C-alpha cells in the first residue's frame, strides 16, 4: 500500500515506511540549499551556513536559555489547557444543560483573535509570565474542549449498556469504556494543541516579553539578521520533530495498537 493511499494516521502505518518521512525532510533541506545557491543573497542563507550559525548561537549567545524559557512556557500552557479543556469538554459532552449553557462561550473562545486575548491579558496582569501563560491557556483551551466534547458525544451507547448490565462501577466504566474511546480525541487535541501553543507563545513573546525565542527573533528582525531567524527556526523545527517522533507518535502507536496490531 502506498503512503498516499493509506488511510491510517502516519503513526499507525508500518514502521518500514518511516524512511519516507525522513526523506521528505532531507528533500526540503535540499530544495532550500539549491534555492540559496541560485539566489546567492544574504536574505536567503544556505542551510549549512545556518547550521554552523546554530553552533555559534549555542556557544556564544543565548540560544539555549531562550529555548528553555519558551519551552517552559509552552509546556505549562499546554498542560493547563489540556487538563482544563478535557474536564470542561467531558462536562459539556455529558450534560445537555451545561452544553447549552456554555457552548457559545467555547465558540467565542475559538474565534477570538489570539492577539486580542494576549493584549487584554498583558493590560490586566502586566507584561509578565502569568499574563503570557494565561493568554496561551485561553487560546488553546477552547480547541481542546471542542475535541473532547466531540469525543464524548461519539461514545457508543452499546458499551454503556454493557457496563450497566455487568454492574461496572463509575470508575471502571470510565477506565474501561470511556477513556479508551476518548484516546483518539485526546491525541488529536494534543497534536493540534502543541502546534498552536508553539505559535502563540512566540507571538506573545514578541508582543510582551523580554525573554524567550519570540523576543530573540524580534531582535533579529530589527537587525535584518536572517541567519539568526533561520537558525532559531531550524532548532524549533528540530524540537517539534523530536517531540512528534519520540513522544507523540510512539504514544499514539501504543495506545491505538488494538486497531492495527497483526501479532
Amino acid at each position, binding site marked *: 500500500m502506498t503512503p498516499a493511499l493509506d488511510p491510517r494516521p502516519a503513526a499507525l502505518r508500518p514502521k518500514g515506511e518511516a524512511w519516507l518521512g525522513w526523506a521528505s525532510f532531507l528533500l526540503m533541506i535540499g530544495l532550500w540549499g539549491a534555492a540559496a545557491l541560485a539566489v546567492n543573497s544574504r536574505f536567503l542563507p544556505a542551510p549549512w551556513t545556518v547550521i554552523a550559525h546554530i553552533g555559534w548561537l549555542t556557544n556564544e549567545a543565548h540560544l539555549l536559555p531562550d529555548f528553555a524559557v519558551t519551552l517552559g512556557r509552552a509546556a505549562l500552557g499546554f498542560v493547563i489547557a489540556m487538563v482544563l479543556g478535557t474536564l470542561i469538554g467531558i462536562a459539556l459532552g455529558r450534560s445537555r444543560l451545561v452544553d447549552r449553557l456554555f457552548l457559545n462561550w467555547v465558540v467565542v473562545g475559538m474565534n477570538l483573535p489570539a492577539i486580542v486575548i494576549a493584549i487584554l491579558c498583558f493590560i490586566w496582569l502586566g507584561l509578565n509570565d502569568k499574563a503570557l501563560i494565561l493568554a496561551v491557556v485561553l487560546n488553546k483551551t477552547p480547541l481542546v474542549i471542542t475535541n473532547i466534547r466531540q469525543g464524548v458525544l461519539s461514545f457508543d451507547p*452499546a*458499551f454503556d*449498556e*454493557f457496563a*450497566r*448490565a*455487568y*454492574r*461496572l462501577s463509575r470508575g*471502571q466504566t470510565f477506565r*474501561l*469504556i470511556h477513556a*479508551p474511546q476518548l*484516546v483518539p480525541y485526546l491525541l488529536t487535541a494534543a497534536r493540534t494543541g502543541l502546534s498552536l501553543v508553539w505559535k502563540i507563545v512566540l507571538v506573545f513573546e514578541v508582543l510582551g516579553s523580554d525573554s524567550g525565542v519570540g523576543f530573540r527573533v524580534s531582535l533579529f528582525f530589527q537587525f535584518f539578521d536572517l541567519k539568526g531567524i533561520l537558525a532559531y527556526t531550524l532548532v524549533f523545527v528540530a524540537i517539534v520533530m523530536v517531540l512528534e517522533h519520540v513522544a507523540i507518535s510512539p504514544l499514539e502507536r501504543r495506545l491505538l495498537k*488494538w*486497531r492495527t*496490531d497483526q501479532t
Partner: protein
Amino acid sequence: MAHGPDLSLSIARLTFGGEVLYKDFHLNVAGGEVVALIGPSGVGKTTLLRILAGVETGFDGQALVDGRPAPLAPVPGLVFQDARLLPWLSCADNLRAVRPDVSDEVVAQALAATGLVDVQDKWPRQLSGGMQRRLGLARALLVNPRLMLLDEPFVSLDRVVVRELQVLVTDLIVQSGATAVLVSHDPQDAARLAHRVVIIAGRPVQIVADLALDTLPAQRSRAQIIAYEDRIETAMVESAL
C-alpha cells in the same frame, strides 16, 4: 444442584417513541427453566431481555429476580447479539472487565470451557465471528451467573458454528443449573435449547403461544428437535407471524 432464580416480569405500560410497546404484559419463569422468547424482528424481544438484565428501567411495572428488582439482583450472564466485546482490550482483559479479581488460571478455564485456546493476548478483531461469540459467552460465564440472558446468540453465523454453539450453550446451562432466557427469531434455536417456548407478537406485544417442550434439551433426538421445530413454526403461523 441449586436452581437459578425465579423470574417475574410484569409490565403495566412501556412506550417507545410515542408507541405503546407493552401493556399489561406478564411473564413468569421458574428457577432453572430455559425459556425461548420467539417473535418477529423488531417486536421488542430484546427490550424484555434488557428489562430482566436491569438495564431498562423506564417502564411502569416491575421485573423481579428471586423477589428482588432486576437492577439490584446479582449480575446476570448477558450474551449480546453483537458479542459486544471491548475492541481496545485483549481477549483476556475482556473477561477481566467483568471480574477484575480473577486469576489467569480462571480466565484460561473460562476460555477453555467455550472452546477457545491461545487467544488470551489476541485482540477481539483478530477472532472470527464464531470465536467472538464464544468469547462473549466466556465473559458471561465468568460472573458465575444464576441467570443467563442470551440475545440472538447465534444470529449471522454459519450452520456448523451455530450447531457447535447450541451444544455448548446447552451443556453450560445444564451444568450450572441457571435460569435462562433466550431471545431468538429462529424456531430451531428454541427447539434445541429451551424447556419452554413463548411466542410474542402484536402491538402492544402479547403472548400468543406458550409451549412446553417435554424432553430435556440435552436428551433430545434429532427427530424430536425437528418435531419441536415444526410445532413452534405451526404455532407461529397460526399466530399470523
